[in-house]
Structures are given as structure tokens and as C-alpha cells.
């Protein structure tokens, strides 16, 4: 599991010992073709990393299911839910048989409490990722206005 965790940007730069600690809070899940990982509006608890397979993200717009992304090996989704339990903004469905690694908020918060040094590294990476996403959204909106 460690090689897969190494590919996740959130865990970039972490030592093998740190990754071993994270491994303890990672849950391996297997999804069958067309199986829903989570529904849109469902309260989110955590993020998933695609280990093997394909995941499709869809969103209901004007009562229609619109495909917004397809994620393959090493890609991850649902990371916003690691910070708060708001409803999911999209639905995630397995396109083919997919193996994913789930990391969930209660476990992550426990890890942060137990190991603040490691916790701060993960939170810093998560904040950087969210900041970059916010910057991109702002730039897009600005372009629309201009």
C-alpha cells in the first residue's frame, strides 16, 4: 500500500515511517462496475485514492447527470470532506471493477491528535491543494467577468 500512498500529492515528502502510520488509517475498498462510491448531497466523511480501475464523477445539473471527470490510477477525489462534513458536491461511480484506498476524517483527526508533527505536514499539503484550487476558480471567474 505504501507505493500507492507515495503517489498521492497529500503525502508527498513523507518518510517511510510516516507512511506506515498513515497506512494504519487507510481502508482498502473494492467497488464493482456501476457501484456508487458516494452520492451527491450525501454527508462526506473522507477521500479516496484510485489504486486500480476507473472512477467517474457526475453532477446533477437541471435534473440531468453530467459527467465532470474520470479518474484513473493514482488520482484521488473527495479530499474536501477530510476537512468538513458538508454534503458531497458530486456523485462518484466505479466504471469498471475498481480498488480504492479510503482515508476518512475521524481517523485523520485522531492521527493529528496523536501525532501533531505528521498531522501538520498533511494539513499543510491539504491547505496548499485547496488554495491552488481556489486560485484557479478565482482566475476562471475573473476571466468570465472580463
Amino acid at each position, binding site marked *: 500500500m505504501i507505493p500507492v500512498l507515495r503517489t498521492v500529492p497529500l503525502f508527498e515528502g513523507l518518510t517511510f515511517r510516516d507512511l506506515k502510520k498513515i497506512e*494504519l*488509517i487507510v*481502508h*482498502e*475498498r*473494492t*467497488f464493482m462496475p456501476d*457501484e*456508487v*462510491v*458516494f*452520492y451527491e*448531497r*450525501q*454527508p*462526506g*466523511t*473522507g477521500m479516496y485514492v484510485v489504486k486500480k480501475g476507473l472512477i467517474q464523477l457526475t453532477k446533477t445539473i437541471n435534473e440531468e447527470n453530467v459527467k465532470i471527470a474520470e479518474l484513473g490510477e493514482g488520482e484521488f477525489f473527495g479530499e474536501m470532506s477530510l476537512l468538513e462534513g458538508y*454534503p458531497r458536491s458530486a456523485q462518484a461511480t466505479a466504471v469498471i471493477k475498481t480498488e480504492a484506498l*479510503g482515508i*476518512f476524517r*475521524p*481517523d485523520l483527526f*485522531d492521527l493529528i*491528535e*496523536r*501525532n*501533531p*508533527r505528521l498531522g501538520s505536514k498533511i494539513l499543510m499539503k491539504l491547505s496548499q491543494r485547496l488554495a491552488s484550487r481556489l486560485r484557479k476558480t478565482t482566475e476562471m471567474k475573473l476571466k468570465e467577468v472580463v
Partner: protein
Amino acid sequence: MERNEFQKVWKAFEIIAIGCVLLGILLVLYLIRGLLTPFIIAFVVTFFLNPVVDYMEGEGINRTFAVLLLIILTLIFLFILWKLTWPTIQTEISSFQKNAPFYESKIREGLNHAMELLEKKTVFIPEGVLQRAMQHKINDLTSTMGDVGSLFQIVRGFVVTFVLIQVIAFFLLKDGRRIKKVLIAYVPNKYFETFLTLLHEIDQQISNYIRGQFTDALIIGVLAIIGLYLFGIRYAISIGAIAGIANIVPYIGPLLGMTFGALLMFIDTGSIMDVFKVVGVLAFVKSLDSIAISPLVVGRSVNVHPLMIIIVISLGGLLHGVWGMLLSVPLYCSMRVSLRILYRGFVEYGNW
């Protein structure tokens, strides 16, 4: 339409299946309840020591080494405590054993007199009915209480159980997270996130409650023993220890501890002054606890209305005696948090 009907039937089947699995687990636990005591105590020990192990691990100490070190330190502490207090406890038990027939006759005499008076004042109760019923109850009580020598056997049996508890606690502290991970791996994907949140919330509720109540009980027990000892009460350690243990049960426990101490003093010495001393010390310790200790140690660990706690404890006691009283509050809290999360997940967000 047909697909919808099929989905509805399938969901109903799923609910029934989950219910059956839960009932099955409860049934198995009920059938092996005799073997559960060391496990329950080991769980309590684990909840109590886990934050210390977590802290040590956070400081960079290997978890296995931290658990071993903590268990060895606990054993050394208990051994020193045992060496210091056992002679006094032994004297108290021997004294109680020697005086048991005297206490029994005194209780019998006092209650007989009370029943006789009651029968005389109440015309509709035939003479002797209450006295015979009371005699029957006292005989039951003395057959349980009379064999005080068995206390030594209980202590000996406890040593064996004690070793078992240490072994279980060691593995729970060391591999608790791994065991939890393996167990929840079998939960279907659909319910996994809800189940994980549920488990976490229940764990928080129970560990907060256990840590708070046990620390509080320990402090109360030590303070009561010191207070009673300073007032020269004969069974200071026993009464203080029972008052501390009773305190684990909120609201009702302290009253039971106080009643036990007062009754024992009244039967032993017959002196109202001694009874006042015991009640005074225990009431003072309880007040000190309510004002200064409990808010710090227990805090708002469960956040349940006092009236609800009393109802829940009474129900627990009615259904399962002492264990029922001890476990009723954490069980109630777990059920409350489960219903809240299930309602949020399945009803509010329409994923049912």
C-alpha cells in the same frame, strides 16, 4: 416501475438482514456473558490507558514499547499499593468476618421489631405475615453475605483474571486500531462511511465517559479513605473504596455508598456520632467533587440531562443489576449518537 418495486423489496430485505445480524451478535454476547467480565475490564483499562500510549507514541516512542512500559509501570504501582494496603484490608475483612453473626442478629432484631410495629399499626395485615416474609429475605441475604471467607477466594480468582486482563489489554492497546480496521473491512461499501463515523462517535462517547467516571471515582475513593481514616473509622478502606466504586454510577451511586457506610457504622458501633462522621466525610467529599473535581475531570463528557441519567440507570439496574447500572449510561449515549447519525445519513440526505 418493476425495478423500483424490486429495489424497495431488496432494501427491506437488507434492513431485516442487518437487524438479524445485530440481534445475532447480541445473542452470542448474552450466551457468553460469563466469559465477558475480563474482556469488559480490559476494555475499560484500554480506554483509560490509551491516551497515555498515544501521547508516548506522539513523542516518538515505539507503540509496542510504550504499551509494555506502561503495563510494567502499572503493575509496579499496583504491587506497591497492594503491599501498603493489604494488611489493613485483611484486618478489615477478618474483623467483618468475625462480627458477621453479630451484624446479622442485629439486622434481624431491628427489622423484626419494625415489622411487628407495622403489623400492630396496620389492621388489615394478618399477624406474622410481614415478619415471615422478612425472615425469608434475611435468610437469602445472609446465605450470600455470610460466607465472607469467600472474599479471599474472590481475591485469589481475581489474580488469575488479572493476568488475563493484562494480556487482553496489552493486545488491545498495541493492536486496537489494526483489529478495528480488520473488523470493519467486512462492512459493505454502501454503509462503510456511516459505520465508520458511528464507530468513531461511539468510541468517543464511551471513552470520555469511562475516563471521566473512573478518574473521578478514584479521586473520591482516595479522599474518602483519607477522611474516614482521620476520623478513626474502623472500616475506613472498605467504606472509602466502596464509596469510590459506587461513584462510577452517577447520582444513585454516591447515595448507595453513603447508605452502605452509614448502615455498617450503625450496626457495628450503634453510635449515631459514628454514623454522622461517615455521612459527614462522604457528603463533604461528594460536595468537593461536585464543586471542584467533577467539572474538571468529567466535564460535559456525555451531556445528558440528570433526570434522563437517573431513568436510564434505574432501567439498567432493573434489567441487569450492577452491570446494568454501570453500562446503562454509555449504552444510552451510544444508542443516542447512533440514531442521530443514522437519521442524518439515511433520512435527512435521502440515501435510504
